[in-house]
């Protein structure tokens, strides 16, 4: 179905393409501005140490089967000793209240500023400047309910709902160009709003006031109940048993290596005593 409406080609060059270009460039601009505005995040040494302790405890738990029992118990004691272990040390409850903590507040403000505000401003400008005519036809059929949303400013009741105005073309651009920013700017770019919003939501959930001890308690419990089982137990027997044919040869070769090591040790001792 080709054009059932003939659209002026001037719309194409002065509306259609410029909106794409504007959205793309504004996104890139936003990325660089947010890089400039957000300073270096100051790392608190205590916080970093605590989070690394948690990571280390988890690594110990996951790989406990590779170390002998004595080594594991030694490490477990270092973590779980009453009153002085890494995990059981008393920590002052950190008041990470969202409203009173200044650094979090400014981060949130900056995030909001650099992401939502340009979108609103430019959306409003485009709506004001390019209003009153249709911009393009979306290739899929839309129901009539969308008409009021997508055809702001055009009051034709008979017009197919697929013909949309420039504001809706702008929003389609904003959403569609998000993944292209990942291509162009590399990972972790500030033009990706979705990640920003996710970060905001997860940041608000992480700040638990007065309960900073909870993850440590959880790790302590997990270490306590861990059932240690060394996988390398009796591994020499397994090795020798499975390779019965070469076992004798291996044993002889090991014998030879041990003898030569002893000889070199003796010769070293002889040299040093001279």
């Amino acid at each position, binding site marked *: 179905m080709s054009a059932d409406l003939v659209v002026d080609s001037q719309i194409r060059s002065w509306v259609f393409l410029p909106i794409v270009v504007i959205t793309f460039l504004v996104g890139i601009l936003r990325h660089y501005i947010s890089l400039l505005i957000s300073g270096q995040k100051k790392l608190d040494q205590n916080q970093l140490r605590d989070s690394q302790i948690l990571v280390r405890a988890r690594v110990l738990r996951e790989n406990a089967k590779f170390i002998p029992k004595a080594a594991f118990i030694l490490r477990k004691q270092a973590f779980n000793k009453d009153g002085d272990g890494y995990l059981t040390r008393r920590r002052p409850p950190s008041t990470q209240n969202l409203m009173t903590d200044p650094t979090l507040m400014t981060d949130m403000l900056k995030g909001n500023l650099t992401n939502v505000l340009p979108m609103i401003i430019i959306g409003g400008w485009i709506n004001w400047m390019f209003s009153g005519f249709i911009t*393009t*036809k*979306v*290739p899929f059929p839309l129901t009539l309910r969308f008409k009021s949303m997508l055809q702001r400013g055009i009051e034709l009741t008979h017009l197919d709902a697929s013909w949309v105005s420039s504001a809706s073309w702008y929003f*389609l*651009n904003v959403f*569609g160009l998000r993944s*292209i920013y*990942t291509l162009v700017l590399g990972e972790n770019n500030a033009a990706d709003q979705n990640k920003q919003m996710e970060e905001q939501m997860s940041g608000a959930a992480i700040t638990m006031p007065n309960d900073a001890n909870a993850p440590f308690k959880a790790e302590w419990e997990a270490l306590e109940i861990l059932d240690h089982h060394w996988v390398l137990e009796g591994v020499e027997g397994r090795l020798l048993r499975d390779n019965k044919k070469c076992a004798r040869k291996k044993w002889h070769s090991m014998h030879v290596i041990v003898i030569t090591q002893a000889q070199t040790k003796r010769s070293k001792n002889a040299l040093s005593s001279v």
Partner: protein
Amino acid sequence: MSSKSRNGNNRKVVAYSDLAIRNNLSVVEYCRTSMAALSGCTAGVLGLTGLYGAVFYIFAVTSLWFMILFKAGLSNWKNYFISRKALLTNGFFGQLFTYILCWTFIYGMVHVY
């Protein structure tokens, strides 16, 4: 795909190299975005509308999945990815918007103007 994930001792325990998995997934994401853009342009040029366009997107995603599996080697894809199904359905909706954008754009350029 350049990096490989390491398999541990092959009884039941398999150790995956985290860096390799992440690298592979980011490469797949890159491919997927380019695929969404290109298939959107193709759909626009072909003049597909409505349901045909949706079917074409699903067809493109599936064919990309096949190509990735083919490149990883049909028998040892396990060395590179953890699960095939996640590979298929991971970025579906994220790239859908890119597809629709390119589709609308090229459709508008070619058929409306």
